[in-house]
């Protein structure tokens, strides 16, 4: 039932077929009932008329017989009564059985002889007289006309039956007044009626079935293209733009198909145009980056040669050479980062996982960041539960993430210590980098991973980062199917948590390190 209602809700065909069948059921029911009542009325009327006519003649012949024997002797009358009974219960071929019920009522006639007045009251077929309705008997007794009534009577040796009772008052000479009833079985009539009922209901059901079938066929013609369109649209969503609808005629469905195909064509061409555009753009960025490398190499070497000789220069030129080298460094980092970003944008960044120990990698990164930083005073501590955490990941990328997180923390640490935590579970590993420096405004949290975004534009750049570091770190983490989250409060520092699957590419099931540090309420 549940499945049926679901089908009704989801399938247009089922909906249309169900409502059509329900409506036609109503119509067939109404017309069928009307037809049946007319037919049965007709049958009953014909039956009644013929029965009445026959009964009429039976009564008439009985009266005539008794009239003839008015002055005859009792045995003759008795014989006449018997004949009347026999002839009245005689059935024609087309008739069902017929019973007779004869009953004397009122006072018997006076007899001149010294013998008892004979009583011819009788009934045939084991008819149970007590089941006769009183109404017709009263009517018969009080009138001289033929009376009739439909009733249900009992028989002693067979089932109760619906019958037509036709009665009349009759006088039997030397006996008394009698009510004479002819009881017509309605079996035949009922059989006819049930045949009509069967025929009508069969026709009705066949009609409904056919209507349902036709509706289904018609609906299918309409629904099929719709379904086809839906399935093609689905394929479009999955990125397959090669599918088209079949257009075989020139009706509305074909119009739908053509419109759909036109839409598909225009979508496909626009998407391929956009793809091409982005490819061209990506290619351009990549080419520019590559083309810049050769002159940059020459520049770097030249600057290094000059820098190597700076002791022999006058102080301003020596300082200039230092600035030149430093700025070339920065320029190069920017170029590298731009190239990396363009790879992510073009979705050509490739993951090259190897097995390595994350702890020793982090320790190495801390060492490198510490030696290359000018803030030797800042202490970086690392907490880890186990000595070694083997993971399968792209070492170059994980190293880059760690360097970015650490140098970002150093940039904002304001000479306060930095704490690195490593927690691993069976399926994932998390690294938290916590500083207690300037922190991040809550509103800025969502933007820390944006490209070239700076927490405070007025703040001087201590380290001269490229502004792409965190954004690249996030892309690197996501390439592993990992995540990088940031938390911060102004004046309370920041917490960056990197969560990676132990095996790159698998899903991360949870976050072993809570982003929000323990001593801060959750709702801030």
């Amino acid at each position, binding site marked *: 039932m549940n499945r049926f209602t679901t089908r009704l809700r989801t399938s247009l065909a089922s909906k249309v077929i169900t409502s059509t069948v329900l409506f036609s059921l109503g119509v067939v029911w109404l017309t069928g009932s009307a037809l049946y009542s007319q037919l049965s009325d007709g049958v009953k009327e014909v039956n009644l008329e013929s029965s009445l006519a026959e009964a009429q003649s039976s009564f008439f012949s009985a009266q005539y017989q008794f009239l003839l024997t008015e002055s005859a002797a009792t045995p003759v009358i008795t014989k006449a009564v018997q004949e009347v009974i026999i002839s009245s219960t005689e059935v024609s071929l087309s008739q069902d059985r017929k019973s007779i019920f004869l009953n004397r009522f009122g006072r018997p006639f006076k007899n001149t002889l010294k013998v008892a007045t004979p009583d011819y009251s009788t009934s045939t077929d084991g008819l149970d007289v007590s089941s006769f309705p009183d109404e017709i008997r009263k009517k018969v007794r009080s009138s001289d006309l033929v009376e009739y009534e439909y009733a249900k009577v009992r028989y002693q040796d067979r089932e109760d039956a619906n019958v037509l009772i036709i009665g009349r008052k009759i006088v039997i000479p030397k006996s008394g007044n009698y009510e004479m009833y002819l009881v017509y079985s309605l079996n035949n009539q009922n059989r006819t009626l049930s045949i009509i009922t069967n025929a009508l209901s069969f026709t009705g059901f066949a009609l409904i079935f056919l209507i349902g079938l036709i509706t289904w066929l018609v609906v299918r013609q309409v629904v099929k293209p719709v379904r086809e369109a839906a399935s093609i649209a689905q394929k479009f969503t999955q990125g397959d733009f090669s599918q088209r609808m079949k257009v075989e005629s020139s009706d509305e469905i074909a119009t739908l198909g053509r419109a759909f195909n036109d839409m598909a064509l225009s979508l496909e061409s626009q998407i391929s145009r956009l793809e091409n555009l982005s490819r061209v753009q990506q290619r351009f960025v990549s080419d520019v980056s590559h083309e810049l490398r050769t*002159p940059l190499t020459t520049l770097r070497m*030249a600057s290094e040669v000059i820098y190597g000789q700076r002791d022999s220069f006058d102080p301003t030129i020596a300082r200039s050479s230092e600035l030149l080298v430093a700025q070339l460094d920065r320029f190069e980092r920017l170029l590298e980062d731009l190239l990396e970003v363009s790879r992510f944008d073009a979705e050509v960044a490739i993951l090259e996982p190897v097995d390595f120990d994350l702890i020793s990698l982090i320790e190495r990164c801390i060492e490198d960041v510490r030696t290359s930083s000018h803030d030797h005073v800042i202490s970086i501590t690392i907490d880890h539960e186990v000595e070694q955490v083997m993971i399968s990941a792209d070492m170059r990328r994980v190293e880059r993430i760690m360097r970015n997180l650490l140098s970002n923390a150093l940039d904002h640490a304001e000479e306060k210590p930095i704490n690195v935590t490593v927690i691993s579970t069976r399926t994932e590993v998390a690294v938290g980098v916590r500083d207690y420096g300037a922190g991040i405004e809550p509103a800025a949290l969502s933007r820390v991973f944006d490209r070239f975004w700076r927490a405070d534009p007025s703040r001087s750049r201590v380290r001269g980062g490229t502004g792409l570091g965190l954004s690249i770190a996030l892309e690197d983490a996501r390439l592993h199917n990992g995540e990088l989250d940031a938390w911060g409060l102004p004046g309370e520092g920041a917490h960056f948590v990197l969560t990676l699957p132990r095996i790159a590419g698998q899903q991360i099931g949870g976050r072993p390190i809570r982003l929000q540090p323990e001593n801060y309420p959750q709702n801030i």
Partner: protein
Amino acid sequence: MTLVMVVDDDQDLAEMLGIVLTGAGIDVDLVSRGDEVLEVFRNNPPDLILLDVMLPGLDGIEVCKLIRAESMVPIVMLSAKGDTHDVVRGLEAGADDYMVKPFRHPSELIARIRTRLRRTNADVLGLLSIGDLSIDVTGHEVSRGEKKIALTRLEFDLLVALAKEPGRVFTRDALLGEVWGYRHSTDTRLVNVHVQRLRSKVEHDPEHPEIVMTVRGVGYKAGVMGGS
């Protein structure tokens, strides 16, 4: 005096490389076209070749293959592309090492060149064996029975590094330090490609190595004598 052939189509960079190398006491032969390399190489064989990937005339990778076909001279590729694909292609063509432009420091370039020219295993002398191979370190020869196997200097160094400490498992980082002279490098592609090349020369069946064994998740080690 050491002679290094610098093959680069960028005149300024080539000149700058010349200045830096000459400053380090190395003679330089400048070539600007890929299709001229082989001729210059034959006339005046250098001790090392610095080879740019993108060259007019003949692609650097092709040049590398041609030189490898007739010499085991150390080749260091210069590439403007850091993409794995190009690096691996260069290494597979027979380059011993590669440097991605722009170099961090000119001194880095010189250090790399010196590493490739130096005998990295100067401390080891005499005969070593690995699996069913015997290595004559002094004579710079590797043979299986009577059959000599030709290896590049780098491949030889790699094999000796493994053979001189049988049983030790070398991480890729350790090999990078030992053979290439890198300190903080995580470039495992270099090791992977060269191990593949070495295996293709010394193994009976490179698919089931018996000389240079892989230790899953860690690195490589020397195969046991005569064992599988």
